[in-house]
């Protein structure tokens, strides 16, 4: 099976990263910001796996790292969504620019 050159994977990863940064900068809806963070994590995972596959093809370290990274993303999503829910119950909206006071 013919493999793509490594650069193509890196380009896809770069584009995803840029999309994630764009989302983080422009969006004020907390949900969209969470989406952006997930996209960022995914682009990083893609890099881990691509680099291991091409530079150290006999090791699986990159895959193991990606597994840990995905698991941490799961924990992050659980806590993040719970925070969004808590904010929503207090404010009836999840616009982050409205959340100024920390007293609730």
């Amino acid at each position: 099976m013919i493999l793509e050159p490594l650069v193509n994977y890196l380009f896809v990863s770069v584009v995803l990263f840029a999309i994630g940064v764009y989302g983080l900068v422009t969006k004020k809806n907390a949900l969209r910001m969470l989406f952006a963070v997930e996209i960022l994590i995914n682009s990083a995972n893609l890099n881990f796996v691509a680099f291991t596959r091409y530079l150290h093809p006999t090791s699986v370290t990159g895959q193991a790292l990606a597994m840990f990274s995905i698991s941490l993303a799961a924990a992050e999503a659980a806590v993040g969504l719970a925070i969004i829910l808590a904010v929503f119950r207090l404010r009836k909206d999840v616009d982050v620019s409205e959340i100024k006071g920390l007293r609730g």
Partner: protein
Amino acid sequence: MGSDLLLILFTAAFAAAASVPMIIIPLIISPKKPTKPKEMQYECGQIPSGAGKMSLMMQYYAYLLMFVAFDVMSMFLFAWGLSIQTVGLNGFFVVVLFIGLLLVPLGFTLYHAGRREIW
């Protein structure tokens, strides 16, 4: 390895090709006589009022959160289960510790999910 997954995709694509006509054929041969009651959403014969997308039930949210943690755990257990003899007894104890630590939130969540009044 990738070609196996491609075959799975082909199977799914064939299912799509076979089931899209199932939606299109009725559009062509079935009668179309829309009436007002037909196009309302179902509410046991009453006229529906209020928004259909009301705020949802939250009571079992804790189970969803726990599912995320345990899904991760079960996938790591799969990675371990493939090579039990290679990792030996040391790996076994690590896994037991891993599972044991995750049983704490299980108990916590089960206790809180059972209390109806706090959700």
